[in-house]
């Protein structure tokens, strides 16, 4: 995490809730990424939202403009990645979350956060804001193991997703992946078509020249190379790769090979949503 110059956007104080439970990680860099684009990010433990803490520590989801679920792991990813975090959220603050989403407020889930959003039923959410049970799954990588490697994403969203609102369609970004369970699956044969029809596909894995990815460019075997999707309303997005790890160029795996810009490729995602909220 390094300071990033060149941020001129000074929007109204956008308050971001970066949610954590025991065993989450990546929350510091997630908060840092939002701060880098001028937002006010706070690390909030799930306990603080459920009232299981002394008065001055309590928080209400209502107070925030953006909810961010960080990557890494949660509760060791025992049972299934994201399952424990999702079940605890749903039972404790399920209605607060539904209200938050129906209010049109942005929710971002990265990596483990994406897994949590799917387990919660906030993605793909074809029929309702939050489905009762999960309707998709992020399943074990085809390789059967954890993969930490650079991946290249193409913005395939036609304009609905709030997190890519200032990123040109077709734009290529280099955003690294690090996960063991990132293969987006559904048993619905029309799954991909539905996502396409609703403009819910956000990012696809591609090769450097933008052509179709195969392993390792698609690190998990996800169908149609999908790396990130949003809900039908466009305010909930989940993605496997980690934009918060590339806020400056100096954390890109290949920056010594002459990357052109000083910004990292993850920055525009955070900037998009903050600009929308200004």
């Amino acid at each position, binding site marked *: 995490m390094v300071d990033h110059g060149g941020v001129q956007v000074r929007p109204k104080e956008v308050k971001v809730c970066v949610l954590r439970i025991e065993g989450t*990680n990546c929350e510091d860099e997630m908060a*840092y990424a939002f701060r880098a684009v001028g937002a006010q990010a706070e690390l909030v433990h799930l306990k603080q939202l459920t009232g299981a803490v002394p008065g001055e520590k309590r928080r209400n989801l209502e107070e925030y403009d953006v909810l961010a679920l960080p990557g890494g*792991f949660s509760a060791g990813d025992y049972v299934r990645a994201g399952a424990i975090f999702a079940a605890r959220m749903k039972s404790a603050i399920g209605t607060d979350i539904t209200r938050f989403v129906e209010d049109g407020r942005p929710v971002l889930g990265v990596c483990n956060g994406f897994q949590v959003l799917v387990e919660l039923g906030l993605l793909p959410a074809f029929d309702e804001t939050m489905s009762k049970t999960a309707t998709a799954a992020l399943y074990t990588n085809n390789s059967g193991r*954890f993969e*930490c490697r650079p991946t290249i994403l193409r913005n395939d969203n036609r304009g609905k997703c709030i997190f890519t609102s200032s990123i040109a369609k077709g734009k290529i970004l280099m955003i690294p992946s690090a996960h063991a369970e990132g293969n987006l699956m559904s048993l619905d044969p029309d799954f991909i078509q539905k996502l396409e029809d609703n403009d819910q596909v956000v990012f696809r894995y591609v090769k450097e020249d933008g052509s179709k990815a195969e392993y390792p*460019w698609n690190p998990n075997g996800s169908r149609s190379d999908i790396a990130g999707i949003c809900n039908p309303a466009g305010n909930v997005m989940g993605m496997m790769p980690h934009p918060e790890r590339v806020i400056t160029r*100096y*954390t890109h795996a*290949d920056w010594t090979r002459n990357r052109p810009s000083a910004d990292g490729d993850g920055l525009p995602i955070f900037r998009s949503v903050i600009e929308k909220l200004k």
Partner: protein
Amino acid sequence: MSEKGFAVKRKVPFELHDIDILSSNDRGLKKISEDMSLGLSVDEMKTIKDYFKKEGRNPTDVEMQALGQAWSEHCCYKSSKKILKQFVFGIDREDVLSRGDAGVMVFDDEHGYALRVESHNHPSAIEPYGGAATGIGGILRDVVCMGAQPIGLADPLCFGPIDKEIDVPPGVKQPRYLLGGVVSGIRDYGNRCGIPTVTGGMFFDERYTGNCLVNVGCFGIVRKKDLARNYAGGRGEVMILIGGRTGRDGIHGVNFASQDLTTTSGEDSRGAVQLGDPITKEPVIHACLEVNGKHLITGMKDLGGGGLSCVVGEMALAGGCGADVDLEKVPLKETGLAPWEIWVSESQERMMCTCKPENVEKILEIFDMWDVLATPIAKTTDSSRMRLFWKGEKIFEMDLEFLTGGPQYDRPFIMPKVSTKKDEVFPKLPNGNEVLLALLSDPNVASKEWAIRQYDHEVRGATAVHPMVGKLNMTGPGDAAILLPVSGSMKGLAVATGCNPWFTAQDPYRGGMAGIDEACRNIVAVGAKPNAFTDCLNFGNPERPERLGELREAVRGIGDIARGLNIPIPSGNVSLYNEGSGGIGILPTPMIVGCGLIDDARKAVTADLKKNGSKIFLIGK
């Protein structure tokens, strides 16, 4: 412990025995040490007997077990301390901030960085997954103890050959199986804790078949004003036990680490092997750093080898005080543990902190917020003794100096035979293609990417130079990784490893030097300046003069070159008794982990060739 001739059960409603050493002769003492798995020699037992003669009573089983732990090689470095003192401890520089559980060096005006490496060899040879995972857990705690946020991990490993199924002695596991388990253990624990594994190495040779080496290093960053001490602030303080519950796991782990592996180790060392729980660890790290950052505590130390028995004594003694412990307050995993088991258990994920009584409440509140168990179990006193109580009964009282001092040996050694130019034969090479292919397919040369990419090396978003460098998805190994420890600053910490066991076997003195030299070159190759080293000295049985000679010479080499370069070694670890069954010793392996500084990481360089037509220079001779 079952009823044995020398153990007299005390008339109390719990398991407590007085051990009759006062009326035991040498043979009896030897038998007591063996039957109680104390790992103490007859001479050591006699010293203990003399002490208790002065006390006018026999020791309890709790006291004997505590001595067994405290006087093990692992805890008191009895065979190596003299050598370390003579050659490496003395290298001082004004930017060494601490030589505690981890070494701490100045990073910038406001911060220090922590470094330490440790071995987890024997547990990993028995249960590779759990052994490696708990190794990571332990080294993370050593860094957290300094008040430092862990920012990176290193994992240099040595195994037997993996390119073929080999004949292994009974009880020894296939190197392939061991390597797979160790890599998975490091992956799962490191990734789940969210600390990037950024450097390391793998080395393969037959001589590691019976005794693999799993060394794990950790780096951290701490604000200078938050630098923690590892001992009590003085008398009248409270000791708070933090983290996991105490169980039977890991009992006699340190004695086990200080013995040769025998063929039956796999079946009967279960108590010495533990599984880590990264999900407890992560909140423990957060909570410990929070109470330290708020300056609510006076000292902090992790529970490693020897468990409570070592940590309470060391924290009190170094703080210039004694301690009274309420042993029954210790939260347990299971019922029915005898007091001595609780006292020496090495259950994972535990730390101890000391504080002024008025801060206890605030501290407990913070741990509660993180759902981390924290229990006051002891008080520091103005005596020089440690006492333990169980349901009102005093079950332990010993002089701290005697308990934690431990013996120190000047064991006999033989100067190793050093290979000379005359001994070297340059092999006749077949054609170049064949040689190249053979080299590239040798596990010592072949790409380690399959393992490196299972470790998250970018979590925390602060990895500037990655372990693999070059064109995306066509990368090769880099020389050193660079981390950006301070958010908002481009000052970088370069980290790399160095060790050449083959050299060291031929010439231990120069082999020790070569490890430091390699670590330095790796660091310089990314554009950073070497600043400090930490070392893990993996050697064989020190009671064999030729093995001790190797250790001594290697350490002398390390010391000479480090002093020559004026680069300190503020921390390290010694792992002896690395011998498989039948006394096949490992190669002498002084593993070096080096740290370097680079003022502006934007000026870092990587090894990959950037474009056609560049010039290549060879530097040095």
